[in-house]
C-alpha cells in the first residue's frame, strides 16, 4: 500500500528549508565518490543537478537523447527568470514571490515547496552571473528587470529574448567542466526506456543507444529524472519535436505516482496554425504583453484588415475584463479569454487568432525602443509569417506549452519509488494548476542547483542504498522487456504512419482535453484514445530496423506512452469536478465565465497509481494553506 508522505519539515514556513538543511544527513567528502548517481536529461534541471552533484564529488552519469547536452529544450525559453531580488525597490520580497506563485497556481501547489523556490531564487541569479551568463543590464552596469504575467512587480531577469539559451549554456558549461574533470560521464544519443527497480528501490536505467540500437544498462545508487513535460501529447505544442513523456511515464509504470496530469498550460501568445503540414507551434514570448495590446473586432465575422478597423470598433478584451492586470493577466486567464472571443466568431477573419498590437507602444516610445526590446522576436515573427509586426498587428492564438502535472514527489523531490528523484518540469510540485511566466527556468535551476545537492546526500546517508551490478536479474528482466517492446513495434508492419496517428491523438486531446473540458467530451476522449491505441497496435508502420538509427521507431516508442498518458489526463480531468488554473471544466464556472474552484472537495493533489493497462488507483494529498488563504483568484 502506497502512502503519500509529503515530508514537509516542521516550523514556520520561512524556516522550514533552513531547518531541514541542518537536519538532513551528510555524506562525508571522501565517501561521496563511492556513490554513483544517474541524471537523465540535460536541460536546466538536469544539467544543473549533474554539474552540482559532480562538484560535490559524486560519481555522476548523465544521459541525453540529443547529440549534445546544450540542445535540451530549456534552450528555447525566451522571456526570463523570476527572482525575489527586489533590485527595483518596487516592494518585492521572498514572501511576495511565494504569494504570487501560490495564487497564480490557483491554490493547488504545496506551500512549503513554493516558499523554498522563492527563497533560493536570488541565489540562482548570483550563480548564473558568476558563470558568465550575459543578462540584460542598465547603463549603470547593474542588472535590468522586466514584468511578467501575474505579478505587479518587476522581478524578471532576462537576456534579450534568449534567456533560456543563456541559462542553459551556463548550466551546460558547469556540466562540461565536470565532464572534463571526470566526475561526470556524459552519455549522448541515449534514450532512457525504463527505470530498474529492485526490491522497491531505483537502481538504474535501461537506455537505447540511438546510433547503434543497442539496449544498454546502467546502475547507480540513485536515479534522477529531469526529462521535461508532456505537452507533445497534443502533437502540436510549443515543445521541441523530441520532447516526450517516456522516461517519466515508464517510471510511473514502475511504481512512481503521477500527479495532476490534467494541469496543462495553454500559452496565450503563440503563432496561429498555418495548415495541415504544421509540425509545431511557435511561441512568442509573454514579455511582448508588456507593451503589446491584445484585441479583436467588436463585430462577428469581421473581414477588414486590422489597420482598417477603427479604434471604436476594437475590443481590448483583456483590458476591459481585467483592468488591474490588463494585457499582463496570467496565462490561463488570457488563453481562455482568447478562446472565448474566437468562439463568439470575433477572431481574426472569423478564425482562431487575435491581434497583439504594438501601434500605441511605438507611438509612445518610438520604433527604436520597441526594436531594442523585442527586435529579435519581431524578426522571428516576420520570418515565419511573412508579415511585418511594426506595421501590421501580430496574430496570436493559445497553444499547449507547459505541463504543471508530473511525477509526484515529496519535499525532497523523491518519488514514491525510493531512490528515484524527479526534477524540473517532470515533477508536479511547484506550480499548482497554472504556472506564472518566467517561473519554469527558476524551478528547473532551483531543483538542480539548490535542492537536489542537499536531498540526494540525505537519501544516500540515511538509506545507504546498495549498488546492484547490471548483470543482476532485475536488470536483465527489464532490458529484455524493453527489447520485446521494440521488436513488437517493428513487427506490426501496418499501413498508417506514426505521425498520422499522433496527429489524430493530438486532435482528440486538443478538442476534448484542451482549454475547456466537459464530462461528455472527456468520456468520449477516453473511448477515442482507446480505439486509436488499438488502431496503432494493429496498423502502424515503422520502416527500418532496430539495429541502427531509426527516427520512426523513436517516435513510435514515445507515442505508445502518449496513449496511456492521454487517457489518464482525461480521467484526472473527469475526476476533478471544479475549474482551477489551466483546468477549466465548462460545468464549473461563474456567470461571467470565470473559473469556479471547489476548495471543499478538491483541495488535493491527485496522485495516480498505475494498476495495469487502463487502470489507476487515486491517492490524495490534501493541501494545507497555512499562509496564503485560498480566495477567488481575481485579476480584475
Amino acid at each position, binding site marked *: 500500500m502506497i502512502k503519500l508522505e509529503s515530508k514537509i519539515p516542521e516550523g514556520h514556513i520561512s524556516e522550514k528549508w533552513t531547518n531541514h538543511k541542518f537536519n538532513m544527513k551528510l555524506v562525508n567528502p571522501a565517501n561521496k565518490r563511492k556513490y554513483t548517481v544517474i541524471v537523465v536529461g540535460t536541460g536546466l534541471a538536469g544539467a544543473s543537478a549533474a554539474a552540482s552533484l559532480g562538484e560535490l564529488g559524486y560519481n555522476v552519469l548523465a544521459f541525453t537523447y540529443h547529440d549534445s547536452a546544450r540542445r535540451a529544450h530549456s534552450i528555447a525559453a525566451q522571456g526570463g527568470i523570476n527572482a525575489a531580488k527586489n533590485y527595483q525597490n518596487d516592494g518585492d520580497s521572498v514572501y511576495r514571490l511565494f504569494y504570487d506563485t501560490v495564487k497564480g497556481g490557483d491554490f493547488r501547489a504545496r506551500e512549503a515547496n513554493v516558499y523554498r523556490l522563492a527563497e533560493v531564487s536570488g541565489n540562482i541569479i548570483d550563480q548564473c552571473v558568476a558563470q558568465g551568463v550575459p543578462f540584460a543590464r542598465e547603463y549603470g552596469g547593474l542588472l535590468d528587470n522586466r514584468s511578467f504575467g501575474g505579478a505587479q512587480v518587476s522581478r524578471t531577469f532576462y537576456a534579450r529574448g534568449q534567456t533560456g539559451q543563456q541559462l542553459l549554456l551556463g548550466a551546460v*558549461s558547469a556540466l562540461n567542466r565536470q565532464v572534463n574533470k571526470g566526475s561526470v560521464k556524459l552519455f549522448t544519443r541515449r534514450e532512457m526506456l525504463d527505470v530498474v527497480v529492485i526490491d522497491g528501490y531505483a537502481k538504474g536505467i535501461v537506455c537505447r543507444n540511438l546510433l547503434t540500437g543497442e539496449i544498454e544498462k546502467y546502475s547507480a545508487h540513485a536515479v534522477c529524472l529531469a526529462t521535461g513535460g508532456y505537452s507533445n501529447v497534443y502533437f502540436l505544442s510549443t515543445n521541441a519535436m523530441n520532447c516526450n513523456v517516456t522516461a517519466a511515464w515508464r517510471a510511473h509504470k514502475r511504481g512512481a505516482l503521477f500527479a495532476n496530469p490534467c494541469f496543462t498550460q495553454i500559452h496565450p501568445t503563440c503563432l496561429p496554425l498555418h495548415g495541415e*503540414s504544421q509540425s509545431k507551434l511557435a511561441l512568442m514570448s509573454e514579455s511582448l504583453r508588456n507593451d503589446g495590446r491584445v484585441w479583436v473586432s467588436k463585430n462577428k465575422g469581421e473581414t477588414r484588415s486590422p489597420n482598417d478597423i477603427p479604434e471604436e470598433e476594437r475590443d481590448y478584451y483583456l483590458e476591459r475584463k481585467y483592468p488591474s492586470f490588463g494585457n499582463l493577466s496570467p496565462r490561463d486567464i488570457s488563453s481562455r479569454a482568447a478562446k472565448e472571443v474566437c468562439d463568439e466568431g470575433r477572431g481574426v477573419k472569423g478564425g482562431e487568432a487575435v491581434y497583439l498590437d504594438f501601434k500605441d507602444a511605438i507611438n509612445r516610445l518610438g520604433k527604436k525602443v520597441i526594436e531594442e526590446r523585442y527586435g529579435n522576436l519581431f524578426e522571428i515573427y516576420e520570418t515565419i509569417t511573412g508579415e511585418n509586426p511594426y506595421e501590421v498587428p501580430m496574430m496570436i492564438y493559445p497553444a499547449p506549452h507547459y505541463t504543471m502535472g508530473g511525477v509526484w514527489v515529496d519535499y525532497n523531490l523523491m518519488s514514491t519509488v525510493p531512490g528515484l528523484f524527479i526534477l524540473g518540469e517532470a515533477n508536479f510540485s511547484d506550480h499548482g494548476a497554472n504556472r506564472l511566466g518566467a517561473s519554469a527556468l527558476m524551478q528547473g535551476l532551483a531543483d538542480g542547483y539548490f535542492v537536489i545537492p542537499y536531498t540526494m546526500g540525505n537519501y544516500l546517508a540515511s538509506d545507504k542504498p546498495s549498488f546492484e551490478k547490471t548483470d543482476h536479474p532485475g536488470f536483465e528482466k527489464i532490458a529484455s522487456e524493453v527489447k520485446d517492446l521494440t521488436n513488437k513495434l517493428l513487427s506490426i508492419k501496418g499501413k498508417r504512419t506514426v505521425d498520422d496517428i499522433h496527429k489524430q491523438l493530438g486532435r482528440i486531446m486538443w478538442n476534448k482535453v484542451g482549454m475547456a473540458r466537459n464530462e461528455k467530451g472527456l468520456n468520449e476522449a477516453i473511448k477515442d484514445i482507446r480505439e486509436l491505441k488499438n488502431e496503432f497496435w494493429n496498423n502502424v508502420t515503422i520502416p527500418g530496423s532496430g539495429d541502427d538509427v531509426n527516427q520512426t521507431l523513436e517516435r513510435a516508442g514515445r507515442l505508445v506512452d502518449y496513449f496511456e498518458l492521454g487517457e489518464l489526463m482525461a480521467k484526472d480531468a473527469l475526476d476533478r469536478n471544479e475549474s482551477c488554473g489551466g483546468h477549466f471544466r465548462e460545468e464549473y464556472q461563474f456567470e461571467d465565465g470565470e473559473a469556479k474552484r471547489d476548495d471543499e472537495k478538491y483541495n488535493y493533489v491527485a496522485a495516480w497509481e498505475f494498476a495495469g493497462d487502463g487502470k489507476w488507483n487515486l491517492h490524495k494529498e490534501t493541501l494545507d494553506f497555512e499562509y496564503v488563504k485560498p480566495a477567488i483568484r481575481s485579476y480584475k
Partner: protein
Amino acid sequence: METRKSNGSGSDGLSLKLKIWRQKSSRSPGSFIDYDVQVSPDASFLEMLDELNNKLEAKGEEPVHFESDCREGICGTCGLVINGHPHGPLPKIATCQLHMRNFKDGQTIWIEPFRAKAFPVIKDLMVDRSGFDIILEAGGYISVNTGGSPDANLIPIPKDVAGEAFDAAACIGCGACVAACKNASAMLFTSAKVSQYALLPQGQQERYRRVQKMIAVMDELGFGSCTNTYACEAECPKGISVTNIARMNRDFVSAKFKSKEVEV
C-alpha cells in the same frame, strides 16, 4: 485540423524537385536521390521534409533522416546544406526557420548534410558534431562551483560590454561555420565562447589558460585553419562576427607571454 482554422494566405502549392543526399551509414557510400514534392508556401522547409517522410513511411520506405528539435532557430540541432548554402539561401536563420515561400514553383533544390572531416555523416543528412562539445569541455566555462557566489549586482558590467558578450554567447553550436569554411575551421565557434568570457570581468581569471586549452583541442580534432575568407560569418544563423576570431588570436598570442599554466 478540425477546429483549428488556418490563417495562412491560402495561396497555391509549389511543385519542387528535390535532390537529397541519402547515405545508409557512416561506412557506406552515399548519393543524391530525386523526389518530387508538392508543398504549401506557408510550410517550413523541415515541414516539407516531414511530409515527404510521411509519404515514404506510408509506402514502408525508410524516411530521410535529418535532425531538428526546437524548430525556432535556437537549439542548433538542425543544419542542412541547401543549394550549396548551410541553412539555405537566406541570411541569419537556421534551417528550421526557412519557409517555402522563399522558393519558386518548379525549382530544383539540392539538400546535403554539413560536410567536414571533423563532422562525419551518421545517416543521410545527420552528422556527428561532438567535436564542438569536446572543445567546450576543454575550457568553455568559468570555474565556479554552485553556491557561494557573491550578490549578482556586486559585479557591475557596462551595458555595451554585456551586449557584446551576449552577441558572442548567442552562438547556437550548429556547425554552419565549419560547413561553410573551405578549410572546415572551427575558429568562429571557438572564438565566440572565448570572447564571451574574455569580455566579462568574471572570465578574466582563466582568460589565457582557457584560450590555450580550447585551441589545442580544436587543432587535435582535425578542424582546419582560418584563412580569413569570412564565409563563416556570412553563413552563421546568429550573425556571430569574425571580430571574435581576431580577439581570440590576440588572446592566444598574449597568452604566450602572460600564462605559464598550460603546456601546449
